């Protein structure tokens, strides 16, 4: 009898327990399921589209570890689950996300940042050396998460980059406060948005350049940085060298990479990436309000929703009876900080508070862990549910939206106690 045959009975029960769960992958030597690369079903979530599962491969961009390739051009690469077992995501494992294929290698020695716009008194220009020398250098630990992280898990599926869970990372960002840079140029009271353009460009003249804006009050927040370093090293090329915007708590779309210009403006930025893309049905989700960009039916995505990720347990994994399981992972939110993470091992009937790890600040991943007993043989449903200090918690039912944003559905990890 092969290993596979021996576990068939267990698997059958498991499969029956999960409505719609298809094709559990081959069972390995130690009872753990050898799931397809980047499978989100293996994380107790809905599965990404078949085509996405089929086309993705591990591939190392120059300077990066092998990451989950979603698309080559423009490059979109996801961080594999195992790198989320540490609270800080290493630079060479940090996800890569670009909208447009024209990505120049910026020479930091030639690079210049232009600060201007109708709502500053004195336009200015800075070299990298000036930014490092003339302004206080500030550090903050913050999660950068793509708005569409987990888009691939939407049912029904929605078009776009079919991300699994790894379009995010947590890093120590170091650089200068945006408010300090704006103050040097004399920000006028007429300013309502600050607009950012990077060195990246579209392959076609007609394609809208990737330009984003943030509200002036967010730009003046002491936590909003122009980051030059990431985890103690200069920003990697793929993550926006030599300078990128860091908007703690807000989704990655605002964290403009390879910044070359900052403009303070008195009217709302109206390009495609603000007016059409990155929008949610108005009023459907909690989060910061971007007043000057509200439309009748839609609003821009802003701050992240509360979420968590179990990193120590895989769907279908087998555990010996009597040996406790460590249910561990990370939790994060839109900037209030994590209040608690609760664990359930009975499909959500009872919940128990996990122990939280060291607090790296309210914008960081927060580690959690709870040792749970394994008393009786059979299927156990492991769930983790994070709640933020602002009282926002994760959902058990997907809240659908056309662009596939804000997926924060609680995982249901079916495991077998044998």
């Amino acid at each position, binding site marked *: 009898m092969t290993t596979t045959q021996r576990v068939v009975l267990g698997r059958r029960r498991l499969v029956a327990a999960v409505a719609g769960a298809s094709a559990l992958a081959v069972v390995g030597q130690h009872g753990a399921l050898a799931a397809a690369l980047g499978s989100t079903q293996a994380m107790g979530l809905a599965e990404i*589209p078949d085509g996405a599962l089929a086309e993705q491969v591990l591939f190392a961009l120059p300077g990066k570890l092998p990451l989950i390739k979603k698309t080559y*051009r423009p490059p979109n690469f996801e961080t594999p689950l195992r790198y989320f077992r540490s609270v800080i995501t290493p630079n060479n494992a940090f996800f890569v996300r670009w909208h447009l294929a024209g990505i120049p290698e910026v020479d930091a020695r030639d690079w210049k940042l232009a600060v201007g716009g109708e709502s500053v008194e004195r336009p200015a220009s800075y070299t990298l050396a000036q930014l490092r020398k003339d302004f206080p250098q500030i550090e903050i630990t913050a999660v950068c998460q793509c708005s569409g992280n987990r888009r691939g898990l939407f049912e029904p599926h929605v*078009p*776009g*980059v*079919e991300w699994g869970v790894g379009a995010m990372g947590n890093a120590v960002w170091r650089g200068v406060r945006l408010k300090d840079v704006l103050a040097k140029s004399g920000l006028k009271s007429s300013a309502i948005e600050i607009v950012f353009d990077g060195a990246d460009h579209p*392959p076609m003249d007609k*394609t*809208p350049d990737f330009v984003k804006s943030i509200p002036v009050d967010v730009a003046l927040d002491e936590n909003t940085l122009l980051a030059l370093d990431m985890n103690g090293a200069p920003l990697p090329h793929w993550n926006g060298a030599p300078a990128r915007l860091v908007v703690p708590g807000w989704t990655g779309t605002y964290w403009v990479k390879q910044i070359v210009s900052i403009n303070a403006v008195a009217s709302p930025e109206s390009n495609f990436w603000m007016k059409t893309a990155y929008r949610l049905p108005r009023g459907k989700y909690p989060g910061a309000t971007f007043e000057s960009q509200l439309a009748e039916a839609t609003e821009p995505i802003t701050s992240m929703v509360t979420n968590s990720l179990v990193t120590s347990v895989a769907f279908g994994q087998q555990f010996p009876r009597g040996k406790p399981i460590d249910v561990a992972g990370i939790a994060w939110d839109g900037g209030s900080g994590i209040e608690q993470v609760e664990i359930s091992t009975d499909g959500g009937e009872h919940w128990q508070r996990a122990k939280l790890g060291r607090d790296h600040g309210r914008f960081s991943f927060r580690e959690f862990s709870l040792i749970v007993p394994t008393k009786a043989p059979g299927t156990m449903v492991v769930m983790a549910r994070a709640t933020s200090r602002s009282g926002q918690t994760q959902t058990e039912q997907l809240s659908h939206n056309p662009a596939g944003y804000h997926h924060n559905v609680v995982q249901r990890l079916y495991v077998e106690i044998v």
Partner: protein
Amino acid sequence: MRTLIALLALAVAAVAVAQESKVQLKDGPGKDKAMACIACHSVDYIEMNSRFMNRAAWTASVNKMINAFGAPIDKADIDAIVSYLVQNYGVKD
């Protein structure tokens, strides 16, 4: 086509060209027209978004590429491209 190839060469100078060339669209009627997509992006975008889009969804996608992103696609080719995508990477209604 020559313009497309020139543009492609420019755009991908720094990216893994060799790897991208391993990504192949399925053979079928309309594939030649669908190859226009490579002017702006690798075609793994297409397989990644399969199979869940019907004719209406693929039509919306192709139109978005033309109208929002300025894809160099002749309007006369839209039908052939959509049919190819539905047949090879889509679902029937």
